[in-house]
């Protein structure tokens, strides 16, 4: 019974909650700027509007152009099924699934980049090249962080990495956990093209990364892109939220509300970071990513040092 409730809550939250996070981030930024800001549910209205529109396709595009948003959306959805959102076992789990998790995100990125290249626009090619470059640098940081978690929990699936043992890991190796959470938070920002890596609101093609890749998408395809991006934000935020608020309980009445609140907190945190920081110069982005690698790598090394 509890497993059933967990499954339903997991899928419902994964499907319905992502745009809310965007709304919370926008609202936080508005509060910092002293504005009222768009309604919390605005991202939902936008998506509904986009899905009702028709599509205009460029004559240079092929099937890849439409496959891009679709594959991306489903890849991040499946990745979301691997994460134990509330600390209870995830719907999909097996030993080593954190590698699948990382490469599902990479698959989504690959297809977004392909769709961008398919349009034949030079701007979109530039965006794709940047996105892929930064992803290359972000991947080692993600893996080192997950390795540290795997070492701490002794398991190889995300359910073990982020499940009930996280609280124990904080007690056993607090410095490592701080470093890993810091590194993964930077990954969260770069993977979702948030400030300081990319400004989701910018409309200057020369400086855009993620947004520039989807310039040619319109209507339902753009809706799928935006929804996929929101789900990706949700999935990676869930990883960070699990590590920051490691509540483990058997009762759905407790752990699901805790999860929702911790997700909203992460969204507010992202909003605060975006409000107080400026976008980095493109040349400085690799330095910050290298910093993320160092953070998670140092966390991992600390574990090796203390256990031997």
């Amino acid at each position: 019974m509890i497993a059933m409730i967990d499954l339903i809550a997991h899928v419902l939250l994964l499907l319905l909650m992502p745009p809310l996070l965007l709304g919370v981030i926008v609202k936080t930024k508005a509060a910092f700027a002293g504005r009222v800001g768009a309604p919390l549910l605005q991202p939902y209205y936008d998506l509904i509007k986009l899905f009702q529109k028709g599509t205009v396709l460029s004559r240079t595009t092929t099937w890849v152009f439409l496959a891009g948003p679709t594959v991306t959306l489903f890849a991040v959805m499946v990745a979301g099924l691997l994460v134990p959102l509330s600390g209870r076992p995830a719907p999909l789990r097996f030993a080593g699934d954190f590698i699948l998790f990382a490469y599902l995100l990479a698959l989504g990125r690959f297809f977004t980049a392909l769709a961008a290249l398919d349009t034949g626009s030079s701007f979109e090619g530039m965006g794709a090249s940047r996105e892929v470059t930064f992803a290359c640098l972000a991947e080692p940081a993600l893996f080192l962080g997950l390795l540290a978690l795997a070492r701490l929990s002794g398991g190889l699936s995300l359910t073990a990495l982020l499940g009930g043992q996280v609280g124990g890991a904080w007690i056993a190796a607090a410095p490592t956990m701080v470093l890993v959470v810091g590194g993964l938070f930077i990954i969260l920002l770069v993977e979702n093209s948030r400030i300081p890596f990319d400004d989701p609101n910018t409309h200057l093609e020369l400086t855009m990364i993620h947004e520039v890749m989807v310039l040619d998408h319109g209507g339902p395809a753009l809706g799928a892109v935006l929804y996929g991006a929101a789900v990706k934000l949700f999935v990676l935020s869930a990883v960070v939220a699990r590590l920051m608020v490691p509540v483990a309980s058997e009762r759905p009445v407790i752990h699901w509300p805790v999860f929702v609140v911790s997700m909203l907190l992460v969204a507010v945190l992202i909003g605060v970071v975006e409000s107080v920081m400026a976008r980095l110069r493109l040349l400085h982005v690799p330095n910050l990513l290298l910093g993320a690698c160092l953070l998670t790598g140092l966390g991992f090394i600390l574990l090796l040092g203390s256990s031997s």
Partner: protein
Amino acid sequence: MSSAVDAMLVMVLLLNFFVLGSSRIRSIIYTVAGQGVLLGLLPVMVHEGIGLRQAVVSVGAIGLKAVIIPRMLMRAMTDLPIRREIQPLIGFRTSLLLGAVATAASMGLAARLPTLGSAGSQLLVPASLATILTGFIILTTRIKAITQVLGYLILENGVFIFGVLLLEAMPFLVEVGVLLDLFVAIFVMGIIINHISREFSSVSTERLSTLKE
């Protein structure tokens, strides 16, 4: 208590990386000063309870490493025309990577060493070795004299961390002597920097390798 020491040592390691990756000399000075404060608190945290010795070493270290020397360096900065280390011998990213390798290596090395009287935490020895190596990297790869002084300071910070481990066994005078040595060395270097900049209108030590009449 041990986890607080661990956290401080991790902070020290992170500050090492920040110094390796930063090009602004002012922020490096602030970072080294911050490291000095952490190191000053270390003897008190490691040897639980505050005796007179710990207090004197602690206050002396903070005063010297975090206040006096950074202030002298800042004063030197106001006279110098440089604000940044622009062209180190190896780039910032490479030196960051070198720093990471050095940290990993010192973790491995410390695991192999016979354990010294393990007061405090297991991180003390590796953190000390990593900081010494970081100072060494800065000292050898940067060109500006002032950054080299900062490298020397970090090197000494590493030695200080090691000294914390032996605070019980080491005579008080030795500790104070080390701090005094450091002070004199920085003082001399400060004078040298000033002279270099006055004579050659540049503080790049590379220029010193060519002799002039």
